[in-house]
């Protein structure tokens, strides 16, 4: 699916990986509408998984509401003793992550094996 910055279209899918890792695949734009569309599902995942990899490779846009959609579940996961990592943001999305400081509280990886290894140490 192709998306434009700020476009409301977003898809969310999950994949259960070995070692109890849940991979969350986001595809589209995490603007206001995109964030609202994934909020509930992200919070459900946060309530049931202790090791979560959020695949951002196909996220074309993120704003402050999109950041909320990542931080709220991340906080819930961490408060339950779990771990969450972000994987593969594009350059612009990563700039937003860094501007907000999110990269200091949720590790950002560009190599899948490194991202998975970070979760396997729970």
């Amino acid at each position: 699916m192709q998306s434009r910055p700020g476009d409301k279209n977003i898809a969310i899918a999950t994949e259960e990986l070995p070692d109890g890792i849940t991979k969350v695949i986001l595809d589209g734009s995490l603007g206001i509408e995109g964030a609202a569309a994934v909020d509930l599902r992200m919070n459900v995942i946060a309530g049931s998984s202790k090791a979560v990899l959020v695949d951002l490779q196909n996220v074309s846009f993120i704003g402050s509401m999109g950041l909320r959609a990542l931080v709220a579940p991340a906080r819930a996961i961490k408060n339950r003793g779990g771990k969450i990592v972000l994987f593969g943001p594009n350059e612009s999305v990563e700039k937003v992550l860094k501007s907000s400081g999110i990269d200091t509280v949720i590790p950002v990886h560009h190599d899948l094996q490194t991202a998975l290894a970070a979760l396997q140490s729970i």
Partner: protein
Amino acid sequence: MMRENGTDQAQDILTLRGRLSEIAELAPWIESLALRHTIPPDVQFAIALCLEEVISNAICHGYGGEKEDRSVVVRFIAPRDQYIVFLVEDEAPPFNPLDAPELPPLNPHEEMRIGGQGLRLLRRFAGTLEYEQMPGGNRLRLGFSTAGSSETASATTDSTDHQVT
């Protein structure tokens, strides 16, 4: 939502009613401008980010929630010297985002704060910002360079130089 295209191409205007769902109109509008004016993808991203933050702030905070009878008008001023400008005009009480305090970035030594990033992102991604209080509302002027990264540009208020990098 209403769109107007001036015949002299000096301005394109997007008028949004005071509802968050209207923000969905931004993406195709920006894409259309980008096609016509050859705006690079990273600048498109910055424009979308900043306009979304400013408009959602006007609706959520300035209007105190969605208000069908109020609008936010976005004016695009055609590029000159590889520089483009957007004016965002609302009907909210006076609010100068250049004077508003910015929350610190998240850090690993504190509980993760949810929210409070909009102002920070606006200041980081807009090339320049100028605020003007209008009769019955606010006008924010956002400038973006299409020649390169907008990250290192500066911003000014109507009264005081204000570095936002």
